[in-house]
């Protein structure tokens, strides 16, 4: 049993689904002969051929549109965005065409749009974005954000099998830094829409997803060690649909909530979570729901600047302490 990286787990998931279902195919910029900018699809074109691993022109909108058309005909396209920052170029296609297709026209559009998102890699304003909030607001889409090696595999497989369009935000910081042993026997599929308790706790709930799960776990550990308090970390895994039940169960247990996301504050997903908790479990709250997020600026390039803009483990520790003392 060898350890595999987050990236390798993702690869495995894609590979297995392509072996299983010949309707699954890949398209995107440099996904074929190059194997993708991050080499997620390296070797796929050799195995599955040029018809199932398609190098496309630089046209995010057309790639998504073409995926949608193929999906209407029963295929299962998986689109790579070279960086998730460029999904902005397909915004109209995703929000106006893809997301509405079933509702307005009864069309099935089972596509997956996946790619690297996130910062902490000194990528600057256009290679560090977390664009989930821009799509979170569009009914018809599902948004998936795997945090673990296991979920990188299990969720991509579930996304491909899902009958609704899924945007799949991988975190590039985790690609090669995160490793785990996935065993070999069972098939790993992680249901979309179910959160995961990454760490059990009783005094405070941290609600988070993607790379922030790891910073939150680090913070929880520090607090346990230094303060003796017990922090629960809830990894949402999917933002749309959101696992309200898991959120509320944790809130009812700990009565205090900190939401941590990497994206900037205003209009980030934390707002919605706050609203939902407030609507459903207001009486269970022993303190305000607080947020640790990036600041409201683009993500700057210099390490010192990026560190200032993005949330850090120490920020989570301090905020959690503040809430625990509330």
């Amino acid at each position, binding site marked *: 049993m060898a350890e595999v990286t987050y990236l390798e787990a993702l690869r495995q998931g894609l590979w297995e689904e392509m072996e299983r279902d010949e309707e699954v195919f890949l398209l995107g910029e440099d996904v074929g002969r190059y194997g993708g900018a991050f080499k997620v699809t390296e070797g796929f074109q050799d195995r599955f051929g040029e018809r199932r691993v398609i190098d496309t022109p630089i046209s995010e909108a057309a790639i998504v549109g073409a995926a949608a058309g193929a999906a209407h005909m029963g295929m299962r396209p998986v689109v790579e965005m070279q960086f998730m920052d460029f999904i902005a170029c397909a915004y109209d296609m995703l929000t*106006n065409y893809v997301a509405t297709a079933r509702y307005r026209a009864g069309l099935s559009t089972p596509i997956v749009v996946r790619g690297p998102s996130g910062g902490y890699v000194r990528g600057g304003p256009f290679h560090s974005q977390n664009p989930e909030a821009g799509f979170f607001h569009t009914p018809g889409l599902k948004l998936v954000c795997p945090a673990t090696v296991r979920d990188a595999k299990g969720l991509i497989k579930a996304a491909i099998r899902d009958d609704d369009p899924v945007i799949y935000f991988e975190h590039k910081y985790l690609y090669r830094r995160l490793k785990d042993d996935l065993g070999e026997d069972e098939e790993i599929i992680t249901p979309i829409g179910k959160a995961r308790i990454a760490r059990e706790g009783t005094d405070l709930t941290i609600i988070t997803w993607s790379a922030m799960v790891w910073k939150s776990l680090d913070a929880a550990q520090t607090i346990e060690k230094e303060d003796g308090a017990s922090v629960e970390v809830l990894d949402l895994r999917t933002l749309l649909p959101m696992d309200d039940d898991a959120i509320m169960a944790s809130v009812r247990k700990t009565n205090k909530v900190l939401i941590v996301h990497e994206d900037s504050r205003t209009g980030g997903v934390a707002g919605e979570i706050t609203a939902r908790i407030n609507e459903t479990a207001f009486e269970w709250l022993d303190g305000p729901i607080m947020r640790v997020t990036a600041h409201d600026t683009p993500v700057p390039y210099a390490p010192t600047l990026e560190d200032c803009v993005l949330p850090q483990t120490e920020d989570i520790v301090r905020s959690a302490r503040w809430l625990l003392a509330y």
Partner: protein
Amino acid sequence: MQRGAGVMTPTTRLSREQLLDMSYYLALTRSLEERLVNLYRQGKVIGGLYRSLGQEGESVASAYALEPGDVLSPLIRNLGSMLVMGAKPVEILRQYMAKETSPTGGREMNLHFNDLGLGYLGQISPLGDMISVMAGICLSFKVRDESRVGLVYIGDGGTSTGAFHEGVNFAAVQRLPLVVIVEHNGYAYSTPTSDQTATPRLVTKAKAYGIPGITIDGNDVLVVYEATRDAVEKARAGAGTFMIEVVTYRRKGHAEHDDQRYQPKEEIAEWAEHNDPIDRYTATLLEQEWVTRAELDDIARRVSTELNQAVEECENDPLPDGATALSRAYARPPQVEPLWFRRLDG
């Protein structure tokens, strides 16, 4: 559509029955729009009404060049194409009146509906988006080695969109069996084509994508049929993507509410009097003695009866039940829960 029926008439690849069939669709398109105008004036159409007067020829003839299994995506003025593919007048009427019984159950308007079985995929409003979607449909044809072809329409105005460019380029480079019909009708809403692009001939855009293209008289039904048929056959044979610029004219305003003040009256009159696609087609059929006046009169009567029936059939259909609005945003869950305030007691 009466495909392959009967014996070909000289100089066309169409039989007499097919020529009459096209006459029927032309008459049906024009008359259905006239019915819609009446319903619009009576306030029964919800929202705007978009006419294809003077452009029915290119819609009907291009769609008529397809075979069963082929798929097209119409624009708002391609009523004729939809009808040829098998959309029913009563469906169009129901769509325009947002009836419960409409193909979209009142969720969407006018020609925005689809039946992939019959081979049409309704557009969405943002112009140009359907081109890459149709490219994707053609990609499925190619990957599956199916001998099917796609056809997509775009207006002179629509060619300015990034979506048009990305979509046609994608189809071209993948050599997908897609025919792109560029409808050069002089205007995009109020904007003349000369403010839309600096090229006087839209077909020059084909060159940018390395695909063949031709410009044809869009108001000559037989020319449109032949040209589309050629392109469709080549695409079916694996020759990739084609562009056809059909030159026509939008005789009505952008929509019924538009007073067309920006279109010179003489220009409109000129096209109406000397370049109406139905008049020209009818004249040819009669001149060539391919059909008789009586047959055309029969068609007119048939169209009228069918439309009377269609209007009658649906005019009193109810609007959809409001609560159905909450279904089908997703496959799973198939239903959006009514929000908390809708579950409170009155």
